[in-house]
């Protein structure tokens, strides 16, 4: 892509409040609006919506606070979620479908099914999950862009002076 080496990928960061159930879903909703406005295909928007929704809910349900960053790269969407909290003692166990550490309040609202991380994995093209006990969790995932979706990226880039 011409000029890509001088271009700054689109980047936006959102703050997520731990326990902030009133605003649950608002961040993933904003990400979805950005992607729809940019003209990405329905499939890409749907997969990104699902993955960011699950990531956002994990921070709200289990962490003290977190940041979600959306990067739109020339050939992929990348989302990084960093949170501060108790962390995940066993990442492999956390990835297992049905495993949940949700409280009753979380369950009452319909969250805590123990499927959030596997939903992210199944709807994205790559996922990294690491955690430090007592500090927090780092989650990254990528959705590859193909064909017409790649054309949507160019107008989003700013150019370095």
């Amino acid at each position: 892509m011409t000029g890509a080496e001088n271009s700054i990928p689109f980047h936006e960061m959102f703050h997520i409040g731990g326990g902030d159930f009133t605003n649950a879903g608002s961040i993933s909703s904003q990400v979805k609006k950005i992607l729809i406005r940019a003209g990405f295909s329905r499939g890409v928007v749907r997969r990104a919506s699902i993955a960011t929704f699950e990531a956002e809910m994990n921070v709200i349900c289990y962490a003290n606070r977190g940041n979600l960053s959306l990067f739109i790269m020339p050939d992929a969407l990348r989302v990084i979620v960093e949170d501060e909290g108790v962390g995940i003692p066993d990442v492999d166990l956390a990835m297992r479908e049905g495993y949940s550490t949700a409280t009753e309040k979380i369950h009452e609202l319909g969250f805590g099914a123990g499927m959030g991380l596997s939903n992210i994995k199944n709807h994205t093209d790559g996922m990294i999950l690491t955690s430090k006990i007592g500090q927090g969790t780092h989650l990254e995932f990528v959705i590859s862009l193909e064909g017409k979706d790649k054309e949507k990226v160019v107008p989003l880039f700013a150019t370095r002076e």
Partner: protein
Amino acid sequence: MTVFDIVNSFGLKIRAGKNRLAEEVTGGYAGDLLSDVIAHSRKGSIWVTIQTHPNIVAVATMKELAGIILAGGREPDADTLKKAEEEEIPVLVSPLFAFEVVGKLYQMGISGTG
């Protein structure tokens, strides 16, 4: 079979999404855990739940569901209705409990696997 056919068949009340009642219903899903619905529901399905908060609309939109039936006489939150109108997702209410709602849908020929 459309959402409208279902509304008429067992007298559901329409709370939102009047413009989308002609949508074809190709299956059904019942569940109150949102990630479970995200994982297993299919596009075009009608969703039976007792959750009433706005995230049910987010889930229905993400999965392109035909509509939501709130069972047990539950009413959607005000924010839920607002979001449902924005996203054009039919939200319907039944006084019947979920088990009976699903039973009636099944009798109408709506199968879970879609």
